[in-house]
């Protein structure tokens, strides 16, 4: 199955600042997914990132707040902009694995905004 390296693993940030999370995949993938998981909640899809096109955002998420880059088929970044304590969550990237492993996830970023 695909292996995804996600960085940073965790961060504590001041409100009003921005954090960029990056995911590197060891193989080429068409679609990458970015999720947020707030404390005690299930996973919520933020956006789907395809290489060479604008990311598709889910209802309730906007590009100004969560800009995404997808410069090639193995890499993507998600920026959490102008952070507030409500942005404190686990952020996860995921890819659809071409084998029988379904969707593979990065190791996650635990973000705390103070």
């Amino acid at each position, binding site marked *: *199955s695909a292996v995804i390296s*996600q960085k940073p693993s965790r961060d504590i940030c001041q409100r009003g600042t921005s954090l960029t999370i990056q995911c590197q995949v060891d193989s080429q993938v068409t*679609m990458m*997914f970015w999720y947020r998981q707030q404390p005690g*909640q*299930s*996973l919520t*899809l933020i956006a*789907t990132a395809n290489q060479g096109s604008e990311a*598709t955002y*889910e209802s309730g998420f906007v590009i100004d707040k969560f800009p995404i880059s997808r410069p090639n088929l193995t890499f993507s970044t998600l920026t959490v902009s102008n952070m507030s304590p409500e942005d404190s969550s*686990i952020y*996860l990237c995921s890819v*659809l694995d071409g084998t*029988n*492993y*379904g*969707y*593979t*996830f*990065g*190791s*996650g*970023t*635990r973000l705390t905004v103070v």
Partner: protein
Amino acid sequence: EDKVVQSPLSLVVHEGDTVTLNCSYEVTNFRSLLWYKQEKKAPTFLFMLTSSGIEKKSGRLSSILDKKELFSILNITATQTGDSAVYLCAAPGAGNNRKLIWGLGTSLAVNP
């Protein structure tokens, strides 16, 4: 609207017990159902089920899908404290982006 519902939401058992976790779904153009284990941050893949009645097994974990009744179960036998985690069920939605529809998860605590 597509949805995935898991039950129970939480469960506390003793080591050695057998547990059954449930996942029902209503998904347009159903293709597959996925089970994941989430201990800290990242969900780790357990099973992908596409066909009814065929049990998938990995050690003490097994899972089966019923496409007629639209549900799946995940069984864990001889539970260990290391099985304590949130177990998530998901199914790809009908859209071209194959977005996963997630259940809320079952939080399993295995006490020694």
